[in-house]
């Protein structure tokens, strides 16, 4: 995400400083005004447009092509969608309240519905008809004091089904349980009384034995801690550990191998002085480098630490054990301080500031025998939202949203599959006028092969003013979708989803 120094400074001026100094009178909000002034000329800004109301009613969609007979279930997706209240617009893409979608597929038909997660924050602010609490990336004028992280939990980042329960996930607080049939909120999930309000990240990793691992990073504590969760296949808490973090850096997601948890801490330090919201206070400190923690699954007190070059990766592929080495790929940003700049530019109606998405696909190798870690470039750029088949111990394929080439919006225009064995990237380009979101592999019932199934994902078709669900044959996805279902409106671009074959 290369942005010029000038724009960086200009953005800082609109970030912490201006928000704090400017009284909110009517619509004296440069972010709100900037976005709405840009919208008519940039129809792709529909991807960051506010959704009004509490829900989008279920509707049956027109299907083009033929939905595979064996594909049955629901693609749940989550993403920020309430960006504005009372003429005030958030300054950071990650701040919007979570809107959970259900794209239900069966008998060749597709329906869509969506509902905002009724977090405590959402309910309280909806009643007041204005933002009341500090957001992760925006200072709210005259905000009320809060008890802890769950008071500004937006549950806006991911959604996962586990142990028969559906959860909307954020990274700073509790998982929020939803009814998979209606998407109605059932409340914050407390796994054990003394673990209330602890962070349960948006990137839990299913293990091959049916359990679910997760972490929660608390770099903001005076003694930074990392929570390590394991949820059993039946949905009960199997283990919980609290380990030390080496610094106050940032962790968005992690990875698991057959025997280890791999947590890489980026030197985007939290709360180092100054006022303002969490993301506003983060400071890129490349001299500290990135630090990988390799944690023994069987005994989480056994932690090995690796020094890596500075970089920020929000998202990781599967971690694979090769003798004493652990290898994994990441969507890696060398300049981790610039991601927040781009995430703020989106809200002002100026997404796609840099040349390309910015993330490079890098391979991280951690040698447990020598204690050495290294980062090497695969030659692949502009990939994000990696997904893979979690049933496989050492997946060969990783799927991505991808920016294939220059395009008007400077956003993802393709879906891609990385073949780790051949070191080759295959792509399908949605083409001009469409922005690709995360795509997920769905196995054919009864099959075990990594490509024996379908690839399912959504894209914003901003020229047609629609959001589209596409289904590909995973083995031949380069040929394009075998079926598409069109929602006759746009919904904001989301983050992560989950395909449930039973819901």
């Amino acid at each position, binding site marked *: 995400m290369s942005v010029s120094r000038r724009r960086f400074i200009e953005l800082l001026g609109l970030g912490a400083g201006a928000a*704090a100094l400017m009284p909110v009178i009517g619509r004296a909000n440069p972010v709100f005004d900037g976005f709405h002034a840009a919208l008519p000329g940039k129809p792709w800004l529909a991807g960051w447009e506010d959704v009004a109301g509490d829900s989008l009613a279920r509707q049956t969609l027109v299907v083009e092509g033929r939905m595979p007979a064996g594909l049955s279930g629901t693609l749940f997706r989550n993403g920020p969608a309430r960006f504005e209240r009372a003429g005030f617009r958030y300054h950071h893409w990650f701040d919007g309240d979570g809107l959970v979608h259900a794209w239900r597929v069966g008998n060749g038909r597709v329906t869509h519905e969506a509902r905002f997660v009724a977090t405590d924050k959402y309910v309280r602010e909806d009643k007041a008809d204005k933002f009341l609490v500090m957001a992760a990336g925006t200072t709210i*004028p*005259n*905000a*009320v*004091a*809060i*008890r*802890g*992280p769950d*008071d500004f939990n937006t549950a806006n980042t991911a959604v996962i089904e586990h142990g028969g329960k559906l959860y909307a996930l954020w990274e700073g607080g509790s998982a929020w349980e939803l009814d998979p049939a209606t998407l109605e909120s059932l409340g914050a999930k407390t796994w054990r*009384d*003394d*673990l*209330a*309000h*602890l962070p349960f990240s948006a990137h839990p990793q299913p293990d091959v034995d049916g359990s679910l691992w997760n972490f929660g990073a*608390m770099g903001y*504590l005076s003694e930074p*801690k990392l929570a390590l969760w394991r949820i059993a296949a039946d949905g009960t808490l199997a283990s919980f550990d*609290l380990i030390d973090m080496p610094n106050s850096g940032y962790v968005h997601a992690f990875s698991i191998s057959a025997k280890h948890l791999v947590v890489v801490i980026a030197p985007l330090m939290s709360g180092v002085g100054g*006022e303002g919201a969490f993301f506003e206070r983060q400071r890129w400190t490349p001299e500290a480098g990135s630090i990988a923690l390799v944690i023994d699954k069987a005994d989480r007190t056994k932690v090995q630490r690796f020094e890596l070059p500075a970089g920020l990766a929000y998202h990781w592929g599967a971690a694979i054990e090769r003798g004493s080495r652990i290898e994994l790929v990441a969507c890696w940003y060398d300049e981790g301080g610039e991601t927040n700049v781009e995430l703020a530019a989106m809200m002002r109606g100026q997404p796609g500031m840099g040349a390309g998405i910015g993330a490079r696909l890098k391979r991280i190798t951690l040698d447990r025998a020598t204690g050495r870690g290294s980062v090497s470039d695969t030659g692949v750029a502009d990939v994000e939202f990696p997904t893979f088949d979690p049933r496989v111990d050492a997946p060969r394929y990783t799927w991505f949203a991808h920016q294939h080439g220059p395009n008007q919006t400077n956003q993802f225009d393709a879906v891609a599959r990385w073949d780790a064995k051949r070191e080759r990237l295959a792509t399908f380009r949605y083409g001009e006028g469409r922005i690709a979101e995360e795509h997920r592999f769905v196995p054919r019932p009864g099959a075990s092969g990594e490509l024996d199934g379908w690839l399912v994902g959504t894209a914003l078709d901003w020229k047609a003013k629609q959001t589209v669900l596409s289904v590909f044959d995973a083995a031949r996805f380069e040929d394009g979708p075998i079926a598409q279902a069109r929602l006759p409106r746009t919904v904001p671009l989301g983050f992560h989803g989950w395909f449930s074959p039973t819901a």
Partner: protein
Amino acid sequence: MKTFAAIAALVMVPALAHGANLEVRIEGLRETSGHLLLALTDSADAWDGKAESVARKRQPVAATSERIRFEGLEPGSYAISVFHDANDNGEMDKNIVGMPTEGYGFSQNPMVMRKATYEEARFELAAGGSEIVIDLR
């Protein structure tokens, strides 16, 4: 922005013969069970537990907004800390890293996610009495 005047409004109430009265309105209770525990202090030492509080009150909770009255006080500087012992176990419950899991608040409603300091919570009790609002968080 250091001041959050809209939250903590100081309002004058009629004067009484002996000392000043303090009306405390507690807003934003999330449960209507248990008790509110208040400590009224007049120094940083008392605030930090190194000296006696001026007064302590324990009042049952029946609604999401409660009123508590302190009578016959000397006018001057004070600070109040309050917590909502919703389960009546006599403690402010916390999670494993020390984040409170029951409601709490301070006079002046400072924007901190920790125990406020005496200076942050300090307010002036007028000779004619005062009313303050504490938003429980």
